[in-house]
């Protein structure tokens, strides 16, 4: 039982990271039906910005987090304007392939300028402290990641449900043409979506750097793919779905490693993706709506 509880803690902290990345995927998909494969790499850029603001500028962790989120919000908007906007009326496959191109561009530009070597996140930015409660080990980092993830998700929910911008986002998501007729600037709303999604990815990047101590230019690929699975699991385009999907994914992986075999972990993760697509393509929270023709 004690081991099971420890595995739950492991799963929740891993899941919090997946959930944060999955939110960005889901938001962008909800608005413009694009799977932004560069999302994991924006997370990597966020981790690097966080790293440099701590290691070079000497800022504290909160300032580094905010700085990374702001920079990546700007990066997300720029990528959207340059790479995706010209293709908005093209086929979806064209935009998808461009997203893969942007992903590779971000990875290899980073490698070119910052070398492929891993960098060690400064430990002093957030010293580790372990709490032992009834034989369970919980670190302050576990708590920080979990609380921050929940907090950011709540803020996001608030923005989407209660603010004018959020209302406009939902409107664009439901019917972009009708939204234009209602006087909503679709371009602006899409920019805001990319900004928020990328800022969440940056937060996840800094957290990964903090949690695992190292960052490298290709760190976004695997977490990005897993978060994509999490978003599909919850129902892509649905925000609470991404949160639940992320946590489920983290717990699932942990349980497979802990009680099955660590060798089957990724096979199970991607097996789940295939199963969902076969049984309930709209995901756990998705509604079965017929496609408009």
């Amino acid at each position, binding site marked *: 039982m004690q081991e099971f509880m*420890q595995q739950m803690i492991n*799963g929740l902290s891993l899941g919090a990271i997946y959930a944060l990345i999955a939110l960005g995927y889901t938001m962008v998909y909800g608005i413009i039906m694009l799977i932004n494969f560069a999302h994991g790499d924006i997370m990597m850029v966020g981790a690097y910005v966080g790293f440099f603001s701590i290691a070079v500028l000497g800022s504290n962790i909160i300032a580094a987090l905010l700085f990374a989120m702001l920079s990546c919000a700007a990066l997300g908007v720029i990528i959207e304007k340059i790479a995706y906007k010209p293709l908005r009326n093209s086929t979806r496959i064209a935009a998808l392939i461009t997203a893969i191109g942007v992903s590779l561009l971000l990875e290899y530009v980073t490698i070119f300028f910052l070398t492929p070597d*891993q960098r060690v996140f400064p*430990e002093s930015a957030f010293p580790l402290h372990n709490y032992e409660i009834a034989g369970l080990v919980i670190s302050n980092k576990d708590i920080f990641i979990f609380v921050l993830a929940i907090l950011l998700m709540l803020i996001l929910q608030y923005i989407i449900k209660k603010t004018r911008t959020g209302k406009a986002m939902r409107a664009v998501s439901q019917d972009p043409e009708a939204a234009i007729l209602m006087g909503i600037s679709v371009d602006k709303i899409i920019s805001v979506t990319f900004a928020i999604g990328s800022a969440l990815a940056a937060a996840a990047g800094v957290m990964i750097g903090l949690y*695992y*101590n*190292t960052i490298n230019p290709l760190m976004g690929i695997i977490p990005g793919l897993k978060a994509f699975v999490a978003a599909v699991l919850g129902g892509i385009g649905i925000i609470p779905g991404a949160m639940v999907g992320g946590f489920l994914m983290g717990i699932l992986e942990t349980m*497979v*490693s802990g009680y099955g075999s660590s060798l089957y972990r990724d096979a199970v993760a991607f097996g789940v993706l295939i199963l969902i697509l076969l049984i309930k393509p709209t995901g756990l929270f998705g509604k079965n709506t017929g496609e408009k023709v």
Partner: protein
Amino acid sequence: MRVNKRVVLAVLMLFMLGVVAGCGASQEPTGENAAPEKATVVEKIPVGINVELSGAVASYGSNARNGAILAIEEINQAGGVLGKQLEPLERDCQSKPDEAMNLSAKLVGEKIVAQIGPLVSGAVAGCTPVMMKNQIPLIAPAATAVNATVDENTGKTRDYIFRVCFLDSDQASRMAEFALKELKVKNAVIFGSTSDEYAKGLAKYFKEAFEAGGGKIIDEEGYVNGDQDFKATLTKIKGKNPEFIYVPGYYKEVSILIKQARDLGIKVPIAGGDGWDSPDMVKVAGAAALNNTYFTNHYSVEDPAPAIQAFVKAYQDKYDKVPDAFAALGYDSAKLLAQAIKDAGAADPQKVTEALAKIKDFPAITGTMSINEKHNPVKKIVVIEFKDGKLVSR
């Protein structure tokens, strides 16, 4: 029909061009036959250094090259070999086996007495046919694959291929012996990378040696290179209460893994192989987490032996960094070659090959070595312990 004839003609011409080019290539051996007379006139002994200076394993190749160049400079300053200066011909094989092979062929054309490098077993395998055909010895600084010096199909030793590093089977059994005899553990868990042959080989050889020595392997787990979260598997391992954990893999994952193991309260010794050798270990895992961890390595920078300290100092003076194992192996390769030329009494590839096969008790930085009948060095493997962030050899 007319067009067809033209096509046939064009193909024929191309074919003939190929024949002419083939003739050009086959002229090389004739040129070589003339070499011995020339060699008596030339005062320099050309040595090929064909290593990975760029590409995926650029750091291995560049450090080995630095070590080899340092050794050659020392030898030349002390008067050279047989009164002649060694002349290093440096080539970059870009971490590609096919490029390594092409460069070997070119170096052979430049009348080298022997080639040092490449580092990686795959690239050495690329050069092997060229060296065997031209009967010129190759000294591999760090190729740990068994079949680098022995043809696994026939069981025959490759006549012209030698190495100065230990084999993976040697280092894994050394660690098994260390765990059983010096740490006195009775059971162990193996938790290694499953993404590369190196780590899988170490895991296999460790298991064989540990069980042969009376130990019990209670669990085997794996991870994939690039993983960052090992907590689930570590929690499972903790539940089994092992006395020892063997983690074959590279420092990138191992450093994070050890940190997470200690965070979860796993206090038993953790050990691995030469893939752990990197300054990043202490930076990522932290000095405290690394206490009670051990790895087998080619040599230790902290070794107080005067020869090793002299080498470390000379290397630091020249390159302004601490020599890693690859630098030491590159240095040893060049020194071993110089010894073989001296023993042979002539800078003749055939005689040098015979001398290399007879090397006994050669005092190398990576341990006093003798070359055995499989062209592998026989030497003692050091076990290094992390003590408060410092490397201490056991």
